[in-house]
C-alpha cells in the first residue's frame, strides 16, 4: 500500500477489541499509541530516542519493530524542528504524535506550539491535528529540569487543548481522543504514575472525551478538585477522612483546556467547600482558574474559602527534603482538607 492509498482510506475500527486488561499507566499510553497506529496509517510518532531505544521511559518500546522507522521516527535532538515538522506533516495529511523526552524540554519547541500551531486555525482555517506527549511532574528526585509541571503555559494559550490523565484508562482513552482531535493537543503524562499505578483499561474504542471531568468519588462535605498525579493523593486523603466520618468528593479534571466548568460548578454547589490541588506552581496555575470559575458562578453556594494547595512558586528542588516540602501529597491534602472542613 502506498502512503497515498493509506492516507485516503477510511480508518478502520479493529476487530476483537472487547474486554479489558490490567495495565500500568505507562502500558496504557503505549497501548493507545499502538491501537491508533494499527487502525490509522496517518498516525506516526516522533521524538528523541523513541525508536531503537524505546524512549527514555520505554513508553514507545516495540513500536519501531512493529511499525517501522518511517512511522517511528528517531529525530535529531531538536524539539523546535520536531514540532514544526509535525505541523508540516499534518498539512500533508499525517497525524503526528511527538514525544518530549521530558515535559521540561517543551520550552525549546515553544514557538512552534504557541505561535504557529495554536493560532493556525484561527488565522487560515487549517487545522493542526498534532499531539505532543509531555512527561511531567516530580517526586522522582530529578531536579529542576526533569520534574516540571508546566501545563499552565499552554492552558493560557488560545487554540491549544491540554489534557492530563490520572488513571491508566484515561491515559489510554484521552490519548485516542487527542490523536483524533483536529486541534493541537498537549498530553501531560505523569512520570510518577508510569509504573506505580495499574488499572483496568478497556480495549479498542474506549475514547475518553476531551473536556469532561470525572467524579472519582462522591461525597457531600467537601470537594477536592485535582488532576494528574494529585488525583491518587486526593483519593487517599479522602479515604482517610472517610474513616474519620467525613464525606469527601474528588473531581478529576482530566482535561485542563477546555476545562469542564459544569462539573466544577456542580461539585462546588453540592458540597460548598472546595480544595483545589495541583503539583504545578501556585500563581496563575490551573487552580487559579478553577477558583475563579467557582467564585464567579457558585459564590452563593460556598460555605468556606476556595482553597488552593499547590507547589510554592519556586523551581522544583532536587534535594529530597526540599522536594518533599515542595510537592503536595496526601498528607498535605489531608491537613488542608481538615482545616477547610473545620471552617
Amino acid at each position, binding site marked *: 500500500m502506498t502512503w497515498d492509498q493509506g492516507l485516503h482510506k477510511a480508518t478502520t475500527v479493529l476487530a476483537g477489541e472487547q474486554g479489558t486488561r490490567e495495565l500500568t499507566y505507562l502500558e496504557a499510553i503505549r497501548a493507545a499509541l499502538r491501537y491508533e497506529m494499527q487502525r490509522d496509517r496517518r498516525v506516526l510518532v516522533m521524538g528523541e530516542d523513541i525508536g531503537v531505544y524505546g524512549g527514555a521511559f520505554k513508553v514507545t518500546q516495540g513500536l519501531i519493530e512493529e511499525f517501522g522507522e518511517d512511522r517511528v521516527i528517531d529525530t535529531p*535532538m531538536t524539539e523546535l524542528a520536531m514540532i514544526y515538522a509535525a505541523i508540516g506533516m499534518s498539512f500533508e495529511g499525517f497525524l503526528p504524535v511527538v514525544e518530549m523526552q521530558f515535559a521540561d*524540554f517543551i520550552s525549546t519547541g515553544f514557538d512552534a506550539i504557541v505561535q504557529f500551531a495554536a493560532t493556525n486555525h484561527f488565522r487560515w482555517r487549517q487545522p493542526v491535528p498534532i499531539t505532543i506527549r509531555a512527561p511531567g511532574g516530580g517526586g522522582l528526585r530529578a531536579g529542576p529540569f526533569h520534574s516540571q509541571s508546566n501545563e499552565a503555559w499552554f492552558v493560557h494559550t488560545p487554540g491549544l487543548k491540554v489534557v492530563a490523565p490520572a488513571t491508566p484508562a484515561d491515559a489510554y482513552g484521552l490519548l485516542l481522543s487527542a490523536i483524533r482531535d483536529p486541534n493541537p493537543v498537549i498530553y501531560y503524562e505523569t512520570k510518577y504514575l508510569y509504573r506505580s499505578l495499574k488499572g483496568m483499561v478497556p480495549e479498542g474504542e474506549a475514547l475518553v472525551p476531551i473536556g469532561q471531568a470525572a467524579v472519582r468519588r462522591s461525597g457531600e462535605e467537601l470537594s477536592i478538585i485535582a488532576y494528574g498525579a494529585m488525583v491518587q493523593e486526593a483519593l487517599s486523603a479522602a479515604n482517610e477522612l472517610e474513616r474519620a466520618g467525613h464525606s469527601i468528593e474528588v473531581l478529576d479534571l482530566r482535561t485542563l483546556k477546555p476545562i469542564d466548568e459544569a462539573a466544577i460548578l456542580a461539585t462546588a454547589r453540592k458540597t460548598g467547600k472546595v480544595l483545589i490541588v495541583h503539583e504545578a506552581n501556585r500563581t496563575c496555575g490551573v487552580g487559579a482558574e478553577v477558583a475563579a470559575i467557582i467564585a464567579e458562578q457558585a459564590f452563593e453556594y460556598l460555605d468556606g474559602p476556595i482553597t488552593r494547595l499547590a507547589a510554592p512558586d519556586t523551581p522544583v528542588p532536587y534535594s529530597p527534603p526540599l522536594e518533599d516540602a515542595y510537592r503536595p501529597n496526601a498528607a498535605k491534602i489531608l491537613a488542608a482538607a481538615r482545616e477547610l472542613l473545620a471552617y
Partner: protein
Amino acid sequence: MNEIDDELLQQAHYWMRLTRALDDRGTFLHKQSKIVGGYFSQIGHEALSVAAALSLGPKDIIAPMHRDLGAYLVRGLTPRRILAQWLGRETGVTRGRDANLHGMGDLSLGIIGFISHLPASTGVIAGVAHGIKLKGEPRVAMCFFGDGSASQGLAHEAMNWASVFKLPMVIICENNQYAYSTPLSRQMAIEHIAQRAAGYNMPGVIVDGNDFAAVYHVTKEAVERARSGGGPTFIECKTMRMRGHAIHDNMAYVPKELLAEWEARDPIARIESELRARGLLDDAKLAALLARIEAELDEAQAFAESSPYPDPATVTDGVYA
C-alpha cells in the same frame, strides 16, 4: 607532546585521575542509593575537559556541561562541594536545589552553571564574550556542547552571533558519538561537526579529544586568538562516551567493537604512557598518586555526608535576588 612541559603534564595527569576517581565515586554512591535520581558519568572525557580548562587564564569564563567534571575541578570547584551537591546537601554548590553537575555555577571561579536544556550555555557564553569585548578586557569565554546539542537551533544562532561580533569565544564541541541513544548518523548528515564553522566564517578545528596534548595545543591557540581580537574558534573533540547516557542506561545500542576501539584510546592510559616515557611516572608513583586522590575523596565524602540537608522551611529561599 614536546611543547607541554613536565610540570603541566603532571598537573593534567592529576586532574584527569581526580576526575575519573570522583566520577567512579559518584557511580558508587549512586549504587549505594546515597545519590538519588540520575547520575551522569563522563568517563572518556577527561583529557578534553581538563585540557580545555587548563588552557584558560584565571579571569576567563567557562561554561561546562554534564560531562565536563574535569573542567569544574580544574577551575577550582572542590570535590567537597561537588559531592555535597550530588548528595543534595546544603553545602553543595546549589545548596540542594539542582542535581548532578547541573547548575554548578560560581562566578568567583569563572564558572557558569548550566541548565539541562542544551546547549543553553552557548548562548549565554556568547553574551559573556560580548560583554568582555564591550569592556575591552583581554579575557576569553569558553563553552561546551555535544554532538546532539549541535542539532539545536541555538548552537547555530550563538555561533553566528559570536562570529558576527567577532567575540573572544571558544566553543568546545564534544563529539562523543552518541546523544543518549542517538548515533551521529541520525544527528547530522556531515562527517565532521567542525565543517559547520565555515558557514559562520570561523575557524573549525578537529582534534583527537582523548589526547590531552593535542586538545591543549588547539584550545590554547584558540584562546590566544580570542584574547588578541581574532574572534571565535570552533573545536570539535572526537571522543567517546564510555558509559551509558546516564547510569540507568546499559547502552545496548553501542556496538561492542566501537567501545573496544575507544577503550584502546583511553585518555588516561595515553597521558600515563607519555609520563612514563619522560621518566616522570612509574608504578610506585602512580600508586601513591591514586592513594592521595582516594584520601582526598574520602575526606570530601565524609564532609558531604556529614553536611546537613537543606532546611525544608527554606524551600522558597533564593528565588529572587
